[in-house]
């Protein structure tokens, strides 16, 4: 599904640099991948690149094959040519993204937030959202605005939104980071159960490997090196 080789993202701020290097990464369809590590090690940067919302600084090869039979798409060429709308189309059709902070639109009800991706794709309302809401335990909040929900409930809505249009891949950036361990475990179990049920590829970032390794996810290798004299932190991810 993903093939990355020598992909680099460098960020600089106030004289301090961070570099994420991906010498080689392959993700197959249906895989459940976990990217773990402490805060600031580049997990979100990695996920953003995989979600085509962050342009890599250098690309050896970056290919994406959304469907099994199709030719892989050259994401590097898309970025090079500035084809942001084509990348948007890929996200729309094939990706669901659970943001760490929820990322719900405050002016839409829970139902409409969960329906957002389906609505954008022009999918009819067929009860999927209501079914997902029931699975996630938020069925009685469907007509509320996000403001009226707790943090945990908002995260469940975000998960529901990422799954409602049945994408081929879901990327989740620490979806339970702001929750207490009990709720976090409950929501994560629900989440993995749902992607299993829908046969969706998952790439998940978390700083707590402890409670996700039980869920059977493959962990990506990474190594973070801090070079104090050069003010550079470098993380290498492979797998």
């Amino acid at each position: 599904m993903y093939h990355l080789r020598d992909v680099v993202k460098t960020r600089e701020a106030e004289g301090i640099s961070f570099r994420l290097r991906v010498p080689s990464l392959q993700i197959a369809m249906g895989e459940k991948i976990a990217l773990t590590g402490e805060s600031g090690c580049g997990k979100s940067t990695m996920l953003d690149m995989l979600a085509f919302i962050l342009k890599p600084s250098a690309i050896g090869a970056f290919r994406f094959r959304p469907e099994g039979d199709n030719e892989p798409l050259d994401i590097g060429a898309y970025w090079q040519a500035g084809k942001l709308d084509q990348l948007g189309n890929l996200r729309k059709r094939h990706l669901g993204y659970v943001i760490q902070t929820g990322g719900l639109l405050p002016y839409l009800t829970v139902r409409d937030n969960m329906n957002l991706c389906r609505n954008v794709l022009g999918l009819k309302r067929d009860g999927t959202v209501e079914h997902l809401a029931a699975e996630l335990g938020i069925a009685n909040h469907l007509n509320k605005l996000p403001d009226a929900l707790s943090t945990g409930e908002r995260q469940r809505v975000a998960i529901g939104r990422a799954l409602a249009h049945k994408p081929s891949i879901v990327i989740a950036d620490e979806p339970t980071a702001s929750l207490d361990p009990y709720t976090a475990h409950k929501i994560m179990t629900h989440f993995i159960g749902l992607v299993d049920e829908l046969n969706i590829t998952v790439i998940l970032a978390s700083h707590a490997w402890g409670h996700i390794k039980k869920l059977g996810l493959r962990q990506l290798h990474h190594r973070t090196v801090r070079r104090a004299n050069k003010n550079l932190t470098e993380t290498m991810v492979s797998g």
Partner: protein
Amino acid sequence: MGIPLIKTFVLASRDYLHEWQMSFCFVIALAAVLGPMLVLFGLKFGIVGAMVDQLVEDPRNREIRPVSSGHYDHGWLDSVRSRPDVAFLVPRTRSIAATIELASERSPRNVRVELIPSAGGDPTLPPGQVPEGVTRIVLSESTAKKLQVGAGDTVDGSVARQFRNQRERVHLPLTVTAVAPAQAFSRDGAFVSVTLLEALEDFRDGRAVPRMGWAGDQATGVRSFPSFRLYARSIYDVAELANAFADLGVDVHTHAADIERVQRMNGNLTAIYWAIAVIGLFGFSFSLAANLWANVDRKRKELSVLRLVGFRTLDIAWFPIVQAFYTAVLGWTLAVGLYQAVAWIINKMMASELEQGQRVCWLLPDHYAIALALTCAAAVISAGLAGLRSARVEPSESLREL
């Protein structure tokens, strides 16, 4: 494949309504700049417009009078009348012969009035109020009041002469066809046909007037007139006509100086207005652009979510454009409401200084439409540019702020 515009429209509308307090602030901010500009333009348009209207509409400003007596025959008068810049021309008889004594059954007093030559198209008289023949006249308001008569009444007109050492007086019944407004002639007077004036002058000069049955000497020679009543086509023709008369050796009195003064004032006020308006327009545009730009910047994180779920650059740009359009229309509506209220107060305060139906502060429907179009254009351009800028930013930059 883009997102149908209606979806962007619905989302933008829901966001606009959800943040109604913020939206209201933007609307107020826009109205606070646009409202005073409308009042300023309304005042300029009303005051200068009223002055120009007064100049244009008051026929007295178009009148051209010879300074001294001359000898103008029908041929000369016809040639002047044929000029395209002449709207109305009738000859005047000698003023000493252009009087008559009027009496009515309702009034105990006789009134001696001046006779003013008139004809169809007389700009000082309302349309349709035309003296005709030798029996139908139009009275000035003061004369009608003194004689206690109105349109349709008949008055007795009489003139006297000393002829062959005998004093003679003739009477003729005159029908009042209308009473002229006070501004047409403020003294005691009557608008009469040139025919009647000629008859009266002939009678006074001892000449016979067969059509009236008045005996006298036979007329000899070609009739000439000492003066005339002339009105230019418009105030803008007065100066040129005055020059033409000067070329013909006729000194004339005009209101050209008054016209020039008002035109100069109009020019000065217009220049001052435009100076203020241009500064105001820049201020307004920058204020609107800054507001909308700031709003789009504030919305970047939500726009990033839309970008994340597949909204394209143009779809994203439409989002703030729709909201800016709402702000522009609502701000314009509020500004027009403010303007209407202020204009009503100003016009009410100045009502005693103005004539019926006159206003100091007013705008044409076209002005409202232009203001709306400019506001919408400025809003849409500002928001569109800000939206495009926002849409081009990588969504990951603002995504985690929400």
